[in-house]
């Protein structure tokens, strides 16, 4: 997998640039062909938005609603259900550390601490001053036998230990 980084759209009120321009609409049309309803393309469409903008703003949601024939409120209800859609800007690298019971007993907490330190994010959910890192704890990543699994952007990294963390963070500089 590529070592991808999130772009990030401004959170302010600058003039809105639509996500679904010609090329994106093409991608969306491909997706739409897989389903019998337009609504079913909502999750994939939101993924497209997040990939393009780094997070999903209220305005983005309204745009998706328009493109798929839904209402903005409906889209917002769906976005807020799924934890992987960012409703706020996040650091360029988004780090998810599993801390559910099986990883907890294998030392996940120390991995979290090491990551907060090495990235400079300091606090869970906060973004490091250089805008590069956001670290959060997540519930079960589904790799309990490879404790502790860490998702950095789209890279799924297994068996992370505190001493592996500095090298890992360096890789994304």
């Amino acid at each position, binding site marked *: 997998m590529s070592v991808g980084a999130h772009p990030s759209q401004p959170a302010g009120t600058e003039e809105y640039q639509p996500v679904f321009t010609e090329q994106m609409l093409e991608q969306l049309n491909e997706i739409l062909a897989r389903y019998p309803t337009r609504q079913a393309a909502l999750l994939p469409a939101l993924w497209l938005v997040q990939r393009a903008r780094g997070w999903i703003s209220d305005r983005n949601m309204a745009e998706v609603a328009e493109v798929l024939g839904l*209402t903005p409120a409906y889209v*917002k209800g769906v976005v807020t*259900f799924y934890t992987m859609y960012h409703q706020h800007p996040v650091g360029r690298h988004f780090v998810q550390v599993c801390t559910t019971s099986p990883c907890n007993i294998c030392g996940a907490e120390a991995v979290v601490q090491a990551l907060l330190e090495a990235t400079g994010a300091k606090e869970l959910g906060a973004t490091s001053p250089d805008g590069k890192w956001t670290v959060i704890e997540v519930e079960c990543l589904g790799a309990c036998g490879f404790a502790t699994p860490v998702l950095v952007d789209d890279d799924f990294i297994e068996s992370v230990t505190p001493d592996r963390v500095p090298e890992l963070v360096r890789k994304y500089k």
Partner: protein
Amino acid sequence: MPEELVNLTIDGVPVSVSKGMLVIEAAKQAGVLVPHYCYHPGLPVAGVCRMCLVEIEKQPKLAISCATQVAEGMVVKTQSAAAKSARTGVLEFLLINHPLDCPICDQAGECELQDFTFQEGRAGTRYSPDYPKRFNPVEDFGPDVLYVPNRCILCTRCVRFMEDVAREPVLNVSERGDRAYIGVHPETRLDHPWAGNVVDLCPVGSLLSKDFLHKARAWELDKTASLCTGCSQGCNVTLDTRENVVVRVRPRPNLEVNRYFICDHGRMNYRWMNRGDRIEAPLVKRGGELHATDWQDALERVTTTLRGAGPRVVSLVSPRASTEALFFARELFRGLDWTGAFQVVMGEEAPLAGVPDLALRAERAPNGRGAELLGYGREYAAALAAAQSAAVVLVLDEPDIPVRAGTLIYVGTVLPERARDAEVVLPIANVAEEDGSFVNRDGRVQRYAQAKPAPGMARPAWWVFSELGAALGHGEPVGSAAEAFERVAQAIDALRGLSYEQLGFVGKPAAVPVAV
């Protein structure tokens, strides 16, 4: 084809109900109200509050009665220990994050959470006061709706109404788990023309009407079955009065007309019922000015005028007047060269997409169809022209008073400036102050009841005209709206055979072709 019936027992009461019916509805027929929150007969079943759990013999788990269909031989126990304890458990869960702010909550007294907690909740909470309760600030959802999330029990009735009935999903459930709340998108508001129904649907005090906010406690209200006068749909409503002031209009279920809903136009269309500038006594012209008098004097002045009148008579009537009033008003001029007309204010039509044949109708009057049945026409302009040369012009609660040479008799609730040169002015009750009936656009005959006293000496218009008719020798006067309607039914083919008793408070179709 005869309806297929299913026999079952609910709390020992045998009932026969139609196949496919839900247990919760069948229970109503057995006289049992199964406590519930998310279920509403006008909405798709959600099955989420889990309050209506009941025990069904031979089923391993408790079942929600809102999503279980009746079956032959089914034995339902709503009061079994397991069912009661499950519901007590649900109530306890609902209350852990619910503020105990009933003393300042508009819903108190008509709150289903209060009612069912009183009925089968625990006396005390086991939720430690050390734990914070969920808190979210009050939100302004739309022109008339406030959301108090702390009181919300996530029954989703409001969301389902907007999604499946209004077909404009501007409300959602946001987030999940105990962080969930009813959400909106910042770019859209709850401003659908039927949005106010979410306030009625909310079983707790979470969705509030700004219009009704802190106006009254539920137990101070008197409730009267009435009809909406906002348009020709004829939605059934309840007028809530406090100390003889109408403070709220709510839908009254009628599956044939408005199901469980009314539009916001109708909901807000009540302030005029409380107007203070009413005519409170009959007025007669003496020495070029109107003077207050008693009914006998005023009625005599009218009969004298009518007896001596020439052949040409014009009636201009309000389509808000009762069928009974319009009938007796018409009878006065039997045998004369009579023209009767009414005019209707028109507005934009606003359908409720999820319910067939339900809309705020363009025609903003409740009894145009009744007026037509009684021979009043819609050619108002022509009637105005005819009025110029008529010997007598009778105006019934219609502000648009013509220029004329003949005598004006004005019968109304308030006195428009141009009615001041009337020979006689007779004060009448408004729709909230009398019993009466309307015929809606589909030809359905429906009754409304008196919710508050009429001011001063004002009387129902049907009484006024029946007294005048009697004085002119057209039979005995009537003593009640029911009697008045009986006379109408005898005289008008379309209403023949109907009576107030038969109409009840949901009405009956008239024997007339449906006009659209």
